[in-house]
């Protein structure tokens, strides 16, 4: 592809839309202590309920 063709193509994309740009990681967000605790609490809640659902499902299979 010639430089002119590349230039023509690239003008229809936003600069931050190029693979070159999207493959660069965005910065890490610093979570507050309260937010971290809340997220971990939600995570534990979800794991516990999932385990209950899976246990029930497996029990139904073996009945």
């Amino acid at each position, binding site marked *: *592809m010639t430089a002119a063709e*590349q*230039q023509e*193509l*690239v003008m*229809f*994309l*936003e600069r*931050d*839309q*190029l*693979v*070159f*740009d*999207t*493959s660069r*990681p*965005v*910065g*890490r*967000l610093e*979570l507050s202590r309260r937010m971290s605790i809340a*997220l971990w609490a*939600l*995570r534990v*809640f*979800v794991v516990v*309920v*999932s385990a*209950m*659902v*899976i*246990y*029930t*499902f497996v*029990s*139904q*299979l073996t009945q």
Partner: protein
Amino acid sequence: MTPPPPVSIDATIAGDGTIALPRPPLTPEDAARSHDRFRVHNARRNGRRWTLLWLLVGPGILAMLGENDGPSMISYATTGATYGLGFFLPFILLTFAMAIVCQEMCMRIGAVTHRGYGQLVLERFGPIWGWFSAGDLILTNLVTLIAEFVAIRIGLSFFHIGAGVAALLGIVLVVFTLSGGRYWRWERIVLGMAVFNGLFLVAAVLTKPNWGTVGHGLVTASPFPGGSFNTLLLLVASTIGATVTPWMIFFQQSASADKGLTPSDLKHGRYDTIAGGVLAAVFGCGALIAGAALFGHGGSSIQGLSGAGFPGALRHVSGNAVATVFALGLIEAGAVAILTISASTGYAVGECIGVAHSFNNSTRKATVFYGANVGAAAIAAAIILIPGAPLLSIALNANVLATVLLPVALVFLIMLANDRELMGRWVNKASTNWVAGVIVVFISLCGAAYGVDSFLQTVHIV
């Protein structure tokens, strides 16, 4: 005085004094996406509104109709067969309204950041949360994909075609749609197939329901279901899981980025999402109305779905035409969902590992993305070949598991949609946050209620 921007040593100064930053290398993926954007640019410049809409719709409709998948339609039909017309008709509309709120956020984040959900969670909140999200997705996707093959198997078994063909059909479809190396091609093929989700509406009309009863149920949400509380919770959780799921979040955000949507396309992205939600709600209600034909004919005890199941039961009550249309609908629902759910798996794996994850790449360039796509479908296909698998149970529990795991995904979605550093002026409005918060609490409570109640019953505490 504002300091001048830092300039790379590769930058050049043009004759008019403007600074030209060095052009990054253009990949084949960029070139393919740019061709699609060229058409959007032309349609917008020439004021061709319908062409513009046609070019920009896709991810929203596919996410919504993809979620009107095999287990969802079986879940709706089971609800209709168990409780008849009433509470669940407006409940389906409510759940799709919730889905529209969530999916609009996905579309907006994808269009503004040009990054998928998995990539953003991993980079913004760290690898632990990123891999938790991807793990949840892969688990629910595998279970759901099994249920999709189950749906195809149920549909094909009505025509006396075996499980082997169902497994082969799904795999061939995935491989066929992936060949071509273009997002646009993949999207249009799957959209073309998704149109046939309307078969469930046809099936509903053919059952000749009492439209007055349908209207009464829609307006009054009555009669309220009676009977077993646990069955009701299962069907409520299953119905939620039939409309809002983790894979939809991954899929629509990644597909919006892969399609090349930008902030200037947000209005059309919303049209796309709302159109998908409305179509999916109408077709979902169609499945429920068709299933309700079995209410009063032993519908609540239909468990023999490992054989002809629903289509077979419908043939006895409503005739061969309804049964045939319903069976074809199940095949379509399963097939479209296999394609979209496999795609969401591919996106998630590619984004989390940090390798190429676009349909605009060749298979050689994006081996992991395409491999995850086909691999997920192949594992699910292999499992349905196991004789005596509890098909209805898998189908319903796939949705419930998705409901239970959804709150975490939604919380991260809301956090990303409020991240001003990423989203700029496109962050959530306060009203959107309120609605999204209520949705998270509602879904968490429904999932937990079923999980805890079922568990206590299983261990014989209640």
